[in-house]
């Protein structure tokens, strides 16, 4: 029974996509109803599966799932199927909630129910409609998004991709879901395709993740050629892992190592780790629900999910206490480096969404670093909690932006960037629900102790890092956590505290219930979902609630990893960095009025360490040169067209030759006219025989008679 539901989980969003695209595009209400209904159905199914999974003892050994024969491959079949084991059950839980929340949020975000804009064009963000109220005053109000239905179609497709990825039991359908999400990220980042910046951002996102995907595909191919299967069940058999770990492959790594590295590069692209991080900040060009979807709930989580899933492969041959093998070392390095790197950039950003983008990159670095050092459960835990509070933060920022836009329309001042934090301030009073939920999300991100989910998951990472002796990682992550708390508080202070810095901020107003309700729901999760993973040895609180998460998710692996021994150092460190960062952030920014006073507006940080410029120089410009000058002008125009034109010219020449030299003189004149002329000439000569004079005829007949008689007599003989 559960298996059927699992197979059906990705289906409603897919159907919703097709229905909206094909049929209900014109009708906005029906479109969003179909989309939300589909998300709701999948949510229902996911909850059902999750709750059923909870009830199964030792779920890790008795997972749900089934497989079908799909492609005939010689004598065997290539199987695809679904599987819900503890890891994917936890993931599908948060995916279902966040997707549904984002869908409902989008209704309000795109101003459903508002009038059509004055000069809104499909492809550009809506500008607002002018309405006249009963007093004859003209107001500008937010207008409905012209491409409303299309948005819901795309995010439905996105949801389909994520569900497919989560429920699949083999790397192939996982990759299919992966790529569908890549496509949808392109479509949605470039949703407002009228803006050149959005178009470029969409291409950049697609291209950058594509680089990762190529390597991932190589990894998948390698696995298939080695093991003959892509199904997780087959790959993670102990015997298979053993074989993979002991077979040497390229660059001194074992097969498992190389495959793990290749697959990890896919995650580097998809989860925007250094060096393929450049697309994620630009992806803020898309509407905020898209940012929430891509950068919190689904796409980047998919990258981390995949690498968590492949942990047995990556850690083949490694056990706790051993030094990290090469792949894990690389993963840990990139994760930790990215965490610090992105956090340093985030402190210098002014756009409210950019801060969150870099924050996402940084937090993903945390998860990946955790996985790199072997903290499987911690990484999964942080993945789940991060999804909730990051989605909350993004949706909250969208609500803030909406409020600012409302203020813009009120004041008529359109020169103010509604996303710049230095134009905000004091929104605490004007947008209370948004403020409180954003605060909860921010605290969760910073790791505010006990009350927020982020604390528990981050603390677990610290504990694992410290407890297993990975000091470098520990220190780097601690610094990154400090910076995280710092820039989060900076963001909250600049946005919500103090006095409004512009008139626009003064006239900001709270958003509709369709936007604030999801915020509240997610806030509940942001607070509470950490309490399922309280370590047992935690002082005071430990042991009250069992460390259910550890047992549950840990059972996915062949043997449940031992919880790390409790130590005060990581706990104190995380408390210090969290609270200290929050306090410093508030302290530094409560009086700051303009960017000029912000001491952290260091050009290097503000310009993201000039990585974009570097890549532009190294890759984009040469590629552009190549395609323009070489491929287009040289190969296509000169060589290929040259060949074609020569062929054409030769054919024309040949045709002309045949016509003028052979056809006309020989066939027309010689044979055609010639025969005619010969006939005419001979005719005109021969007709003179018929003179009309009888005696000619008679003479001729008698003469021939004589001749024939002679011939007869002499040749044939006789009388």
């Amino acid at each position: 029974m559960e298996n059927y539901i699992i197979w059906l989980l990705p289906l409603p969003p897919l159907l919703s996509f097709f229905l909206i695209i094909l049929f209900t595009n014109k009708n906005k209400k029906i479109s969003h109803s179909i989309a939300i209904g589909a998300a709701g159905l999948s949510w229902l199914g996911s909850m059902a599966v999750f709750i059923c999974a909870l009830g199964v003892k030792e779920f890790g050994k008795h997972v749900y799932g089934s497989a079908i024969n799909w492609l005939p491959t010689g004598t065997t079949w290539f199987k695809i199927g679904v599987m819900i084991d503890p890891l994917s059950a936890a993931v599908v839980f948060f995916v279902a909630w966040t997707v549904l929340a984002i869908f409902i949020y989008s209704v309000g975000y795109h101003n459903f129910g508002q009038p059509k804009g004055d000069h809104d064009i499909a492809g550009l963000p809506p500008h607002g409609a002018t309405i006249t109220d009963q007093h004859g005053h003209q107001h500008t109000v937010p207008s409905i998004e012209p491409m409303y239905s299309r948005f819901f179609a795309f995010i439905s497709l996105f949801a389909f991709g994520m569900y497919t990825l989560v429920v699949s039991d083999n790397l192939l359908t996982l990759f299919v879901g992966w790529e569908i999400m890549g496509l949808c990220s392109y479509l949605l980042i470039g949703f407002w395709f009228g803006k050149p910046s959005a178009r470029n951002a969409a291409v950049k996102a697609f291209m950058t993740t594509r680089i990762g995907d190529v390597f991932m595909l190589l990894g998948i191919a390698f696995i298939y050629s080695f093991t003959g299967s892509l199904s997780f069940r087959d790959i993670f058999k102990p015997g298979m892992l053993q074989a993979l770990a002991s077979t040497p492959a390229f660059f001194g790594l074992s097969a498992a190592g190389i495959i793990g590295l290749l697959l990890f590069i896919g995650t580097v692209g998809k989860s925007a780790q250094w060096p393929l991080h450049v697309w994620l900040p630009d992806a803020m060009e898309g509407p905020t629900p898209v940012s929430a979807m891509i950068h919190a709930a689904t796409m980047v989580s998919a990258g981390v999910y995949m690498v968590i899933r492949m942990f047995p492969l990556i850690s083949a041959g490694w056990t706790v206490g051993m030094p990290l093998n090469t792949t894990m070392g690389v993963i840990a390095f990139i994760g930790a480096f990215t965490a610090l790197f992105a956090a340093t950039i985030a402190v210098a950003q002014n756009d409210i969404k950019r801060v969150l983008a870099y924050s996402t990159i940084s937090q993903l670095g945390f998860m990946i670093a955790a996985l790199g050092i072997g903290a499987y459960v911690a990484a999964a835990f942080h993945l789940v909690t991060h999804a909730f509070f990051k989605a909350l933060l993004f949706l909250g920022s969208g609500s803030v932006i909406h409020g600012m836009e409302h203020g813009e329309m009120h004041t008529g001042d359109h020169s103010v960037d509604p996303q710049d934090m230095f134009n905000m301030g004091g929104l605490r009073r004007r947008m209370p629900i948004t403020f409180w939920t954003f605060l909860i999300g921010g605290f969760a991100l910073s790791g505010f102790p006990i009350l927020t989910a982020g604390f528990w998951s981050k603390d677990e990472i610290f504990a694992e890092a410290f407890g297993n002796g990975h000091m470098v990682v520990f220190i780097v992550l601690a610094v990154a956590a400090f910076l995280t708390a710092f820039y989060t508080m900076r963001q909250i202070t600049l946005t919500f505290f103090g006095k409004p810095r512009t008139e626009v901020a003064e006239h900001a107003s709270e958003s509709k219930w369709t936007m604030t309700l999801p915020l509240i729901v997610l806030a509940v999760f942001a607070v509470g979902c950490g309490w399922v993973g309280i370590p047992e040895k935690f002082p005071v609180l430990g042991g009250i609630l069992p460390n259910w998460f550890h047992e549950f998710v840990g059972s996915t692996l062949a043997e449940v990893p031992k919880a790390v021994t409790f130590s005060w150092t990581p706990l104190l460190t995380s408390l210090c960095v969290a609270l200290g960062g929050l306090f410093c952030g508030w302290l530094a920014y409560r009086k700051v009025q303009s960017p000029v006073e912000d001491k952290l507006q260091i050009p290097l940080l503000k310009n993201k360490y000039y990585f974009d410029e570097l890549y532009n120089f190294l890759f984009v410009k040469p590629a552009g040169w190549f395609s323009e000058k070489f491929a287009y002008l040289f190969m296509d125009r000169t060589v290929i067209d040259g060949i074609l034109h020569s062929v054409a010219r030769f054919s024309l020449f040949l045709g002309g030759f045949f016509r003028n030299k052979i056809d006309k003189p020989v066939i027309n004149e010689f044979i055609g006219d010639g025969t005619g002329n010969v006939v005419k000439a001979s005719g005109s000569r021969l007709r003179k025989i018929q003179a009309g004079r009888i005696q000619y005829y008679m003479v001729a007949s008698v003469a021939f008679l004589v001749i024939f008689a002679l011939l007869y007599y002499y040749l044939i003989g006789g009388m």
Partner: protein
Amino acid sequence: MTVEQIIFIITGLFTLGSAFMVVTTQKLIQAALWLVSALFGVTILYAILQADFLAVVQVVVYIGAIAVLFIFAVMLTRKELRDQGSQTRSNWWIAALLGALVLAGLVFLIIGEPAFNRMAQAIPAGVDTLRNLGTALVSPDAYVMPFEVASVLLLSALVGAVYIASRKGEEK
């Protein structure tokens, strides 16, 4: 040389000579008259051959009708009293050559055939050739059909000749 042979030779020469004159004389009316004489010669030949009825018919029909018709025709188609120009075509020698060749061939064949050297048998007594001819012409077992057809032929010739030569609508 029996008497018969001499008569035959004289008659033959007479006939041939007249025929020769028919085809060479320059005056057409003389040609017609020479034809009459040639036909007379043929009559005598019929008589020698004991085809007496035919001899008489020859005189009556050929000379009396046909030759006269010729003379009438010559009269009716004279432009002037004098015949114009040579009556022989310029390439008469081809005709002469051909005629000579044909004659040579025929003579050669005739001489070469031994069956032609026989003499005539006497007509058996009691055979009345004239009566037999008459019977043959009208007897249904014999040649009444060609006879009747010949009469139809003559009728059609008559009608045709009258029609062709009539003056109606031909004066231009």
